[in-house]
């Protein structure tokens, strides 16, 4: 929390107070999360209310002088109630240090009504002080920056579908890949470049940024993939653009206009799809195709289900339907209410692949694993709730994890998660 000394002692104003203004209330879950985030972030930031409390107490004591006052504190900000009590204690003790004792109203020479308020950028604490028979209260006000909150990913000890937070940033994240090694590295793809992080001392440290240069504007709902290469570090697929990292020496990234199809799962699967350069979906044209099927409906994402001697492909269509392609037939699973993002995933204890699917709920979202014993999906994991809509869901090289990116509706940050399926829980 940064601090600027914005405290000012103000002249008296007309008496009278507005009734408490009820802002639009978020859902109970959102409120709970908000409170939890606030609490956690306050802990993380040290929750140091001492300085503003001291400033406010100083202003109050300057107006009242030494003596006995009554103190009321009203919270109309996002400050957690536990913190309000802490703030009260701080103000009382700071007042005491200035010779002002807080006591019952009927024995007090003055009453200080402190309101903890806020605006878009700052906390605003106002003390309205009524002394004796004065018609108008005196006013003291301090303001100081509100912290920018940051939260981790969703994780539950009971979950079979596990989420590990990789990164959080304000710029949209398109994809992320983790490279095991020493140190562990992570590649983060955004619309402006690839950021390379090293895992040091328990946190990701930015080591290098490789800018992506492009001529034509990117589509509004920008999507992209980053896939590890065999003879070079990685390839990047973006609408109308392909980038390849250097093979040796210092790491560079070369991008050029390209209509090449994108690998649908990983390069090992050998199936790619052509992506519309100015939109946000795959055209449906496949390379080389699924059996006899060289094309399907336009789709947003695809996941494979291994079926012995063939692969059943599950496509999330632009028509909001889920389509199944087995190399000969195309079916529509009209009852499914899945979102646009699907990805294939494997669990270590199973030989087959499962489908991770998002929901169609708004504004929150969830991810759940499904298996396909036949053509009807069966839930294979619990629903992993995310505090915001999923932006990307891409299988990683070995299929043992999926990168999920969601827009955290509380913080506005984009969160990249590594999702894995754990067995036997």
């Amino acid at each position, binding site marked *: 929390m940064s601090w*600027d000394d*914005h*405290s*000012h002692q*103000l002249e008296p*104003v*007309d*008496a*009278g*107070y*507005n*009734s*408490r*203004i009820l*802002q*639009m209330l978020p859902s109970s879950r959102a409120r709970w999360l908000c409170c939890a985030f606030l609490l956690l972030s306050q802990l993380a930031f040290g929750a140091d209310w001492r300085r503003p409390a001291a400033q406010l107490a100083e202003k109050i004591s300057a107006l009242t002088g030494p003596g006995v006052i009554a103190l009321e504190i009203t919270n*109309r900000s996002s400050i957690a109630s536990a913190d309000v009590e802490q703030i009260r204690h701080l103000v009382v003790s700071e007042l005491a240090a200035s010779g002002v004792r807080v006591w019952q109203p009927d024995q007090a020479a003055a009453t200080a009504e402190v*309101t903890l*308020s*806020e*605006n*878009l*950028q*700052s906390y*605003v604490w*106002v003390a*309205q002080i009524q002394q004796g028979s004065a018609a108008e209260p005196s*006013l003291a*006000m*301090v*303001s100081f920056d509100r912290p920018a909150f940051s939260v981790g990913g969703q994780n539950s000890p009971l979950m079979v579908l596990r989420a590990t937070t990789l990164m959080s940033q304000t710029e949209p994240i398109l994809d992320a890949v983790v490279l095991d090694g020493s140190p562990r590295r992570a590649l983060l793809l955004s619309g402006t470049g690839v950021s390379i992080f090293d895992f040091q001392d328990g946190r990701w440290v930015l080591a290098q940024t490789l800018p992506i240069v492009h*001529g*034509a*504007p990117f*589509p*509004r*709902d*920008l999507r992209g993939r980053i896939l590890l290469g065999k003879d070079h570090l990685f390839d990047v697929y973006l609408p109308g653009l392909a980038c390849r990292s250097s093979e040796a020496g210092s790491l560079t990234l070369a991008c050029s206009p390209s209509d090449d199809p994108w690998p649908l799962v990983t390069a090992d699967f050998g199936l790619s799809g052509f992506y519309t350069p*100015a*939109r*946000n979906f795959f055209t449906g044209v496949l390379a080389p195709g699924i059996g006899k099927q060289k094309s399907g409906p336009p789709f947003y994402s695809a996941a494979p289900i291994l079926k012995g001697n063939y692969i059943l492909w599950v496509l999330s269509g*632009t*028509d*909001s*339907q889920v389509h199944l392609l087995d190399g000969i037939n195309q079916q529509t699973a*009209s009852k499914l209410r899945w*979102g*646009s*993002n699907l990805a294939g995933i494997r669990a270590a204890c199973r030989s087959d692949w499962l489908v991770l699917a998002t929901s*169609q709920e708004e*504004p929150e979202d969830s991810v759940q694993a499904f298996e396909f014993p036949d053509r009807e999906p069966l839930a294979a994991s619990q629903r992993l709730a995310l505090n*915001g*809509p*999923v*932006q990307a869901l891409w299988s990683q090289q070995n299929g043992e994890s999926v990168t999920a990116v969601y*827009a*955290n*509706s509380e*913080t*506005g940050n984009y969160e990249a998660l590594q999702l894995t399926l754990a067995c036997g829980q």
Partner: protein
Amino acid sequence: MKRFSLLWLAGSSLLWAGVALAAIRPHYGGTLRLTMRQTPQALDPISLVQADASNLARLIYDTLIVLDHRGQPEPSLAVGWQAESGNQRWRISLRNGVSFSDGTKMDANTVAASLRAANPDWRVLAGTDTVIVQTAEPHPYLLAELALPRNSIVHGGLQPSGTGPFSLAQWTPGKHLSLSATEQYWKGRPFLDSIELDFGMGDREQSASFDLGRTDVAEIAPENIRRARAEGRAVVTSSPSELLALVFSAAPQSDEEAHLRNALALSLDIPAINNVVLQGGGEPTGALLPNWLSGYGFVFPFQASSERARQECALAKQRAPLLLAYDASDPVAHTIAERILLNARDAGVTLQLTTHGPAGVTLARIPLASMDPQTSLTELTRTLKIPTPAFTGNSAPEIYSTERELLRSRRMIPLIHLRTAIMLGPNVRQVALFPDGSLYLNDAWLEVQKP
């Protein structure tokens, strides 16, 4: 009720987290149909602002700067900026590769010309990829002002072109506007193919059109929000933002006149107006800025005191009725004006209602100009044609001091901060109303309905 134009800065032009994509990826294509009360007669940014149709400006034009959800400046057509000489001279670096809808490349000269036309008081110099804005006085919140719709960057004369996500397809002044998606928009082509807007439609007309499936987005007056929700419509509202106020034509010329205004302010039962006439469509206020923007709005009183009102009235020695003007085209303005008249009469103040001609006081709606409090207050004073306040800083206490001085000038009596509201059709996605009431359509899309 006269709608004060100037401001409506929809501004903020926020691109914030609230516009995050939904669980279903956006679909490209389709035409979004909207209805509006306003009747803009011209499409240049200043005319749109004056017609209270700034939301349209953001569809056709871009500004150099946008404000994020905390009111902080972010790059748009500008990619960077630097303040020099104590915030009196700003060097702004421009984005490359942006074109106007008429095909002209945006460069420093066109940007400078556009800013000069909108701000005759500024000295704007064009460099290679930069413009330099010099102001007569230090201007620490210039970036927020550059985010106002009236500072949209335009090229051309009577029918200027912009760099925005949509370009003009068809235009019948005051009646209808067709916009087409700009394929090469520098921030990415909009999801919608086109937008059709019908103007000059009252609330009932809009509601009927919505019920018949002829429009996808319709406005709802604050007094109808509660009913629309009860009817199960998909209603989106802003935070309380548009100021309903009594605005005096001039500063008080005598102590008696000042007492008369005090008496009028103390006589008003504002909560009753909000709860009964406006059906809770706003929040009573004694402040100019809404509390969510200032953080201190609650300290300004608004509660009626008939005893004090009568005392002030006795000091006023009113000799002639005070003319109160209201906008006859606003369906609730007459009812509110009558309420005010009755409240005032109880305190001994004589008002006379009028819908035309000069009046001593006007019942006005003043849209919130910006997500930046300083800019909002400054634009408010421009609207009222009173001296622009000098800010000593940007902290809440400093802005409070300025607002308090404005209120003490007795040029206006704040009544209620109104919510802006719209109702959305079942397949409309990512249409956002920001806290300041501005409508954001740049990310809107239409969902394909499942068979």
